[in-house]
């Protein structure tokens, strides 16, 4: 596992408020509890379809999105509950969509693979691997054309970096110098296939050089550094055009809920669980005197209550009606 290869950090000078530190912690815990609850809802037979969990990867979406403003856009992956929560999506509406309810973000028609909240700049999760990357280019084009002082973040995974969309999108964004930050969450597996079997490079960020743009690989479990580097990357892409940021992390769960995970050893998973980004962050906060153990326990409790409330909201919400099935196929 060469997860540390190419890791650089130049962001030591960025100042972070205590409030921001604790907000990121709360969001990481909310993400984990959201997904743990979602997994239980499957077991209880309350949810159909599938779900893709990002447990173990919380630092990536929370770290990046915490550095963004409301007017910055994100294109999410299908494993992006952390990205949505990081971008201030409403957890009640997320849970309601997960349960397919009328009150969900997509009125129960999209499910969590297609969750979006345009009011906070989320232009949608995507069920197609790499499907959102060209859309990010278009959003960046809008921002540049309309002279907005904002950026677009296109999230995707290691698997998507082998798709044509990745290469076409990075090239076009580079040629047009668009304010797009391409963020690759490398969790080392495209479903069951380890990156070593899907590409002949150890460091995905080197792909940036083919498009004449800057590439940066970071420890994907270090939320503070991800946050700091994203703040810097924002200024960089506004000035210079796109950049590729690769966050090396790990997927604790299987690809989806039906994955028996025969392709990896229990030792490997255990090794990564020891690098838990939340545990690591809580230790950091206490060590730096930014929070007490009690403070963090209070935030854990709050996150738990938030999820309990979300499930209650979702379960008490009405089912969508077939009478409305043609709504939104076309705009007026």
């Amino acid at each position: 596992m060469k997860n540390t290869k190419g890791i650089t950090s130049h962001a030591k000078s960025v100042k972070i408020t205590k409030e921001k530190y604790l907000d990121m912690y709360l969001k990481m815990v909310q993400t984990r509890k959201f997904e743990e609850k979602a997994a239980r809802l499957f077991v209880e037979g309350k949810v159909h379809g599938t779900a893709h969990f990002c447990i173990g990867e919380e630092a990536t979406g929370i770290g990046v999105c915490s550095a963004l403003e409301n007017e910055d856009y994100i294109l999410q992956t299908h494993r992006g509950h952390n990205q949505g929560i990081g971008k201030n999506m409403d957890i009640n509406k997320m849970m309601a969509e997960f349960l397919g309810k009328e009150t969900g973000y997509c009125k129960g028609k999209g499910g969590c693979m297609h969750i979006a909240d345009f009011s906070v700049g989320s232009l949608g999760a995507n069920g197609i691997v790499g499907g959102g990357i060209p859309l990010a280019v278009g959003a960046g084009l809008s921002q540049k054309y309309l002279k907005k002082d904002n950026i677009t973040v296109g999230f995707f995974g290691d698997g998507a970096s082998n798709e044509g969309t990745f290469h076409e999108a990075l090239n076009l964004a580079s040629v047009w110098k668009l304010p797009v930050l391409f963020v690759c969450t490398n969790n080392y597996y495209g479903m069951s296939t380890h990156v070593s079997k899907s590409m002949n490079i150890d460091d995905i960020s080197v792909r940036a050089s083919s498009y004449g743009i800057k590439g940066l690989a970071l420890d994907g479990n270090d939320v503070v550094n991800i946050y700091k580097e994203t703040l810097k990357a924002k200024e960089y892409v506004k000035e210079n055009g796109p950049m590729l940021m690769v966050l090396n992390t790990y997927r604790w769960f299987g690809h989806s809920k039906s994955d028996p995970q025969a392709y990896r050893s229990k030792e490997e998973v255990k090794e990564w669980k020891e690098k838990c980004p939340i545990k690591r962050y809580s230790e950091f906060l206490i060590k730096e005197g930014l929070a007490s153990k009690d403070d963090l326990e209070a935030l854990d409790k709050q996150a738990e209550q938030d999820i309990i409330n979300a499930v209650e909201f979702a379960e008490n919400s009405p089912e969508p009606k077939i009478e409305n099935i043609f709504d939104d196929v076309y705009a007026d």
Partner: protein
Amino acid sequence: MREITYADAIREAMSEEMRRDENIIFMGEDIGLYGGAFGVSRGMFEEFGEERVLDTPITEMAITGAAAGAAMTGLRPIAELMFSDFMTLAMDQLVNQAAKTRFQFGGQASVPMVLRAPGGSGTGAAEQHSQSLEAWVCHAPGLKVVIPSTPYDAKGLLKTAIRDNNPVVFIEQKLLYRTKGEVPEIEDDYTIPLGVADIKREGKDLTIITYGRMVQRSLEVADKYAEKGIEIEVIDIRSLVPLDKDCLIQSAKKTGKVVIVHEACQTGGFGGELSSVIVDSDAFFYLDAPVKRVGGLDVPIPYNPNLEALVVPTIDSISAAIDEIL
């Protein structure tokens, strides 16, 4: 009225709309100084500049996806694919992204983009540059699909497509680009609504339902029959999605005989849908004969000019179908 070409009409529609709304941008391969592979955009780069007429690399998926992403975030892009065959390269962005965005996000977004692409055979460009793939995109709810047959229709329909808040696939007929037709003066702004068919020729004895390049051919056939005293009605559906079903049904009731003509391969083609519209309606009880389809042969478009001309509906093959049910 003045006469301009089909290509000029398309350029006028784009230029007039771009003058009206500065959030309209235009992107595609070689559309800038080169003026487009078929010369459609000649002069637009000079007028609107490189910020609004954006030359792209050869990158159909990114062109289509970037147009969709820009459309979701405040712009109204027109994207051009050099040939409609290259929709194959853009299919994910068109069918999985642009078409579904509004529905799958519960109505939070609209995607006001137009994807223009030249379709059809007749130029000797062979298998990969001559297809009629419109049925593919008609099968993706969320997309609208337009195929104009005259300069007048091309201009009026394209202006409407640009103003529409949905992704519209606008397939032009490359063989018609240089044909001329009457179009109002530039100052006479006009649009044609999508979903309204045009009766290009009235008749009482038989209805031909068609679109695109086969409109002219069907009119030729109708002229030939008129000499024999048989009055054929020719309906140009103009937009496939939405479709003016009423017009088709009324005409079928009036004439009792229907022939459907299109250039695309017959199997799985849009003609099957047009036929079903008639047969599923009360027009069925007015039919004096089976509905006949005349589509292209189920083969790729060949290079040899004689073969190329014979794999799409001809005056003779259309006439044969008519004779069978007259």
